[in-house]
């Protein structure tokens, strides 16, 4: 499937409108179906857990997958290969620390991130991929292993709907945990605001890369966070630690944006260095665009990997 720009005939759904839909799964469906309607003629062409091909048995292969009928009929050893094996295992790693509860547009970053995660999960589910979830703040909260079932998707949505309560953000520990839990190589989708020290992030990402995982990093920021869009001097209170600080935004803005950009750049550089994708989203951006950017980044990566001669049996995402 070739990702294309969404059809211009149909306007994108503004996040403010989307967030009025209370049900998270419904929200994801709206996004994904709108997206599909732009890029597919028939999104429901079907996928199966069925047989895809035979392969010559070589010693050491798992005998469970040996096709005994073929052996009985032709006395040759063939292995059955199923679609399951070729499917992607997507792992959503969602930041649920309290800094994600900030929002200046009527909804919080956490809600936006949850919608994004749900959209991605639903999209992957529609493609037949297994989706898992790991939520974290300063430690890992919920973990759902990657499965491809409708009920599992429901549970995943439910876990995403939990409110963010963590008092701090530790980016490295959940990634290490993913590396421990997920043995099979897969896609790790990290959604966070990255408003935390980055010192241990590189080691965790490196570990995931070494395990063969592919990573897509979503940095979700509120527009007010990006520009420090406040007018009056005020006592700024840290949502996570409760620390207060007297700040005049007018004078502090330049310094703030400079340091925020430095952080964003550090995250992006880190991802690029390890060959991962980094996408920065602000909560006023439509989610279809996020999905589109995600797919395009995956396409580019797939080409890059193919060029590198890397053997890939993955289905195009």
């Amino acid at each position, binding site marked *: 499937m070739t990702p294309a720009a969404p059809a211009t005939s149909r306007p994108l759904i503004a996040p403010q409108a989307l967030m009025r839909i209370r049900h998270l799964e419904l929200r994801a469906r709206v996004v994904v179906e709108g997206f599909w309607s732009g890029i597919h003629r028939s999104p429901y062409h079907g996928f199966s857990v069925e047989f895809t091909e035979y392969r010559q048995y070589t010693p050491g292969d798992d005998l469970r997958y040996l096709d005994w009928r073929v052996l009985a009929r032709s006395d040759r050893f063939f292995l059955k290969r199923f679609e399951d094996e070729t499917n992607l295992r997507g792992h959503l790693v969602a930041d649920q620390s309290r800094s994600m*509860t*900030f929002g200046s547009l009527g909804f919080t970053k956490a809600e936006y991130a949850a919608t994004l995660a749900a959209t991605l999960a639903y999209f992957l589910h529609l493609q037949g991929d297994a989706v898992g979830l790991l939520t974290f703040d300063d430690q890992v909260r919920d973990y759902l292993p990657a499965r491809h079932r409708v009920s599992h998707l429901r549970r995943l949505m439910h876990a995403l709907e939990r409110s963010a309560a963590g008092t701090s953000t530790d980016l490295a520990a959940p990634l290490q945990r993913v590396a421990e839990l997920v043995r099979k190589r897969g896609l790790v989708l990290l959604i966070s605001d990255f408003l935390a*020290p980055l010192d241990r992030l590189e080691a965790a990402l490196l570990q995931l890369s070494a395990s063969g995982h592919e990573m897509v990093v979503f940095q979700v920021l509120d527009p007010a966070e990006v520009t420090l869009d406040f007018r009056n001097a*005020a*006592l*700024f209170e840290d949502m996570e630690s409760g620390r*207060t600080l*007297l700040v005049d935004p007018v004078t502090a803005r330049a310094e703030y944006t400079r340091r925020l950009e430095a952080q964003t750049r550090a995250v992006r550089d880190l991802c690029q260095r390890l060959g991962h994708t980094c996408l920065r989203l602000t909560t006023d951006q439509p989610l279809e665009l996020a999905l589109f950017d995600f797919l395009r980044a995956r396409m580019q990566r797939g080409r890059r990997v193919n060029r590198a001669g890397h053997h890939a049996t993955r289905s195009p995402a």
Partner: protein
Amino acid sequence: MSFLAPLFLLGALAVAAPIVFHLVRRTTRERVRFSSLMFLRPEPPRLTQRNRIEHWLLLALRCAVLGLLAAGFARPFLRQDLPAITAPGQARQMVLLLDTSASMRRDGVWNEALARAEAVLRRLGPADAAAVFTFDRTLTSQISREEWVATPVGDRLGLALARLREIQPGWQPTHLDQALTQAADLLNETAAASTDAKRQIVVISDFQAGSQLGSLQQFDWPKGVEVSVESVRASTAGNAFAQLLADVPGSSATRESAVRVRVSNEPDSTRDQFQIGWAGPDGAPRGAALDVYVPPGQSRVVSLPAPPPGATADRVLLRGDEQAFDNTVFALPPEPVRLEVVYAGSDVESDRRGPLFFLRRAFQDTPLVSVRVVSVDRASGPAPHLVVVTGPMDDSVLPLLRNALAQGRVVLFAPVSASAFATLGKLVAGAALGAVEERPAHYALLGELDFRHPLFAPFADPRFSDFTKIHFWQYRRLDLTALAEARVLARFDSGDPAIAELPVGPGRLLMFAAGWHPEDSQLALSSKFVPLLYAALELGGGRPPDSPPAWVGASIRLPVEGLPAGTPLTLQPPNGVRISLPAGTVSFDGASAPGLYELAAGAERRRFAVNLDPAESRTSPLPADEFERLGVPGGQPSVEPVREAQRQARLQNAELESRQKLWRWLLAAAVGILLLETWLAGWTARRQTLNPEAAT
């Protein structure tokens, strides 16, 4: 600048409110919850100079409004001398009465009274006329009205204060009624000259319950005279006092030679344990002290034993009471009086049928009186108290009898036979008493008695007046026709005189028609005999010295009994200044201090004690409505002098303030500033709307 209600100035603290609000607005800003402060640095906001100036101007205006309002409510005024409040037409005529009675000697009372007097005198205006009196038993003028008016205005207060400071309270009782009525009369007299003057009596006293107020009830209070009461209080309330009780002769106390003392405690007292005992002239105790428990408002009578023999005690001391002025009661321990009866007769004492036998037994010694019956040749002095003549005597007795009569003594003539009348004839010059022996058929009885005469006065009571049981077997008929001055005191039932009295100079001659010996009558055996003889003894001055209570300020009966008559008397009060009294003086009312007085007549001396009037010791204050009850106009309970001065100052301040009315100007200024502030605020707001950038 002063303020009538300075507390309102606290309202100026409200000025702090706008300032505080301003500061609060600067410090407490809105809180913004932000996702992370990791990219923020603390940076206090800066204000532009222009903003500050604008706000400070408004702030200053608002503060000024509040300050002016507070100052206006505090009612400021400028101090300046107010012209005299009393107009000349309303000049006052004042009489200041200052109590100098003994109760003013209590702690702190006199000083406060002087302070009150000074405060009262200071309030007087130049047109007011005052007279200053002190009073206790009598009213004493210190500064007369004429002297006050004649003194220059500036010197009046100094003069009055100098006079008052020389005075100290005395020992006299408080005759408040007399002082008030005399002062009212005085004001009434002076009122004739200036009818429109306000007349006022100011009384400065402790208004103790013992003050005399009796004559106020009858007093017709003159119109327009008002009484202002300045009551002073002792620093410590309560008082206890002792009082010697007069003994009835013959009572048990007399016989036991103890004195009875009443210890009283005032109702407002705080103590109830006291000791009472004898003390010497040096104040040191003599003998043991008695413990007395007297609850406040009550009194107890204790019997105080005589001081130990040989100890010189002349006063009773009450200890345990804080008010010392009345704790000493002067008292002389009882001393027996020696009286002498001279008997002139032919019989001897051993003769049981003779008069002397009965006479000697009639006079028994008591602790207070010791009577000695002696014969003529053993008479110790020229003037025995009683001379009894029974038999015919030679002329050597006559000088003694004449002398006794000249000294005011009594000669009792009770002849045992008609022959004895010869002596009587020699004694009473020219009197030839033809005595005839009478022997009634059965017996004679006393039929008519003059109970008004001192001789029979003890029997005046109907219980004792029955003389009918005394039988007279024989008597001598007295022929009194030649003696015009003779007075028959008793007659027999036959009408013949039984007892007659003949005054001879200051003395008296008592003539009995019959003797008391059994041969003549049953008189010696009757119960009337002894009292009759004692009555005869007392007629001649042989009275045991009953000591009526002698009080300072009261008329004191002098103990002249037994002193030679016709001799000038000398009285020595405790302060040592002798007072000469003419002969025959029996009373004295000039005692100015309690103590032991000594009365001297020639070589004879008598001491007697003078004490404080017990009414003066009743120091609890009079009821508040007492003056009102007695119809004294304007006798209001007084206020403290300091408070009074403060009240005057407040009145003066209020008068000044109401004349100046500065608060109006302050309120007008506040309104003006308020208008200015409104305009300025409106102008600023308009400018900010037009130029929003400049406002931020």
